[in-house]
């Protein structure tokens, strides 16, 4: 019989708290980058996910993601309402902590992922439609892919895809869904014509600071135990954030001055990129992963925004989609059994197959997320309407959607 380890449980409890906190942190990271008239609305788009998805996850989300496997594609309904998910460990997922702790920890990931997407449609989304979208998205996109990658029997798990803490499940899904949604909803009025100056960069710094901290729970907690692997993940996480923050600083410096918003963005991008790799690669590899994530996202934003191709407003695709993709692939390059014997070797350690697996898993998830989100958004647009009216957009969503003002 498996017994509960109190140290591991303590760490998973804390990690759950840390990842929960990442959602308000993200709220501020995003809220600082929109225009003043949409600050509250943007904060709320993230915050409300804590309310909405907590309940979805409790009622059926966890079951869809981690219930008994059906064809590798989806979990069964055995854990509806968290039935049977209690103090006993579930060795399929985490042998030394209560099964419920694993479910709670995973819940925080399910919450933040749709919150990440909101960066694509801030400043113009209709709140009502957004609520429906998020519920659908969590159910139709997140829960299945989460099962594929992490569920016992999930196809990508069986394939051997490595995703330590959600590079695919969280970031690729969020990023490619953001891309699809942004294409459907269209640009903000004035996009490319007027500068959209960030209303409050200190909010973004606060958010990034708390995200950095929270990510220790995100990646470190994904070891599911307070052991050497958790520590290792914490270090790789920190290293990639640092490297990407520094590199982004130099990139913006080359273009003009070292941007503070750029530095904190870089740090977040580094955190994104190292997420799938954190428990599989060495700290020095993490340095490279983070350091290379920065130019990828940086130049992607420049390209997309510079050419006015698409108003994916807070660069969710460029930062999370591409950062997550790069991380997933980099895991296929840098992973080594020396770090984690439960992992695999990557290309650079003589195992090109792993790279291929990573590529397939990432591509499948990205394509699935993109297509399904595109369809959901299209349908919702046709039925409920994705956007507020032009006048409401001009006035700002704080007033038009919430009848509130951020500041008196």
């Amino acid at each position, binding site marked *: 019989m498996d017994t509960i380890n109190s140290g591991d449980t303590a760490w998973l409890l804390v990690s759950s708290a840390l990842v929960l906190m990442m959602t308000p942190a993200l709220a501020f990271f995003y809220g600082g980058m929109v225009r003043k008239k949409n600050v509250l609305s943007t904060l709320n788009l993230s915050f409300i996910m804590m309310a909405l998805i907590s309940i979805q996850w409790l009622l059926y989300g966890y079951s869809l993601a981690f219930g008994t496997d059906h064809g590798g594609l989806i979990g069964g309904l055995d854990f509806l309402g968290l039935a049977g998910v209690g103090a006993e460990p579930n060795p399929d997922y985490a042998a030394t902590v209560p099964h419920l702790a694993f479910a709670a920890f995973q819940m925080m990931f399910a919450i933040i992922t749709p919150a990440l997407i909101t960066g694509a449609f801030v400043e113009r989304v209709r709140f009502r439609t957004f609520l429906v979208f998020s519920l659908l998205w969590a159910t139709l996109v997140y829960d299945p892919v989460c099962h594929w990658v992490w569920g016992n029997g999930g196809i990508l798990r069986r394939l051997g895809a490595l995703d330590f803490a959600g590079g695919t499940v969280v970031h690729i899904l969020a990023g490619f869904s953001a891309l699809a949604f942004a294409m459907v909803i269209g640009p903000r009025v004035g996009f490319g014509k007027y*500068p959209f*100056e960030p209303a409050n960069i200190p909010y973004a710094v606060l958010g990034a600071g708390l995200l950095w901290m929270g990510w220790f729970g995100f990646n470190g907690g994904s070891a599911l135990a307070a052991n050497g692997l958790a520590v290792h993940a914490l270090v790789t996480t920190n290293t990639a954030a640092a490297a990407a923050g520094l590199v982004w600083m130099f*990139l*913006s410096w080359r*273009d*003009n*001055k*070292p*941007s503070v*918003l*750029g530095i904190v*963005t870089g740090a977040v991008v580094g955190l994104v990129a190292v997420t799938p790799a954190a428990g599989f690669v060495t700290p020095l590899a993490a340095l490279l992963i983070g350091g290379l994530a920065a130019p990828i996202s*940086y*130049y992607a*934003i*420049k390209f997309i*925004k*510079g050419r006015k191709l698409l108003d994916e407003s807070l*660069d969710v695709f460029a930062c999370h989609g591409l950062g997550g993709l790069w991380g997933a692939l980099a895991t296929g390059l840098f992973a080594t059994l020396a770090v984690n014997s439960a992992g695999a070797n990557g290309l650079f350690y003589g195992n090109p197959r792993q790279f291929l697996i990573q590529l397939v898993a990432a591509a499948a998830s990205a394509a699935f997320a993109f297509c399904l989100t595109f369809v959901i958004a299209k349908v919702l647009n046709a039925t409920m309407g994705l956007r507020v009216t032009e006048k409401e957009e001009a006035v700002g969503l704080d007033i038009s959607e919430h009848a509130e003002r951020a500041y008196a």
Partner: protein
Amino acid sequence: MTKKIEAIIREEKLNDVKDALREIGIVGMNVFEIRGHGRQGGITLTGRTGTYQVDLLPKVQLNIVLSDHNVEKTVETIRRAAMTGQEGDGIIFIYPVEDVIRIRTGERGREALMYEGDIDTRRPG
């Protein structure tokens, strides 16, 4: 007769201008922050990536209501203290004022504009 001076200056020059005005005995004034556009076209800011242009620049507007005969000296003083010689130094407007009423005392006109130790108590006339 009473006039109003509206001086639009650089934020960073406010302390210098206040000092210079205190020296010549200008006491009553108020200031607030505005954003403006003139010969100085705009400013280049750094964004997440690359740069963008903002065409309204932060300035400070300084309002002084004072007697006719002090206008020239005050304008000169402001100019000297606020000038850097580079675009964006700002501009001064002068308006007619019809009346002044001090809330606390009910004083009107010139009387309402007298302050202890101000410019008019300093020099003859």
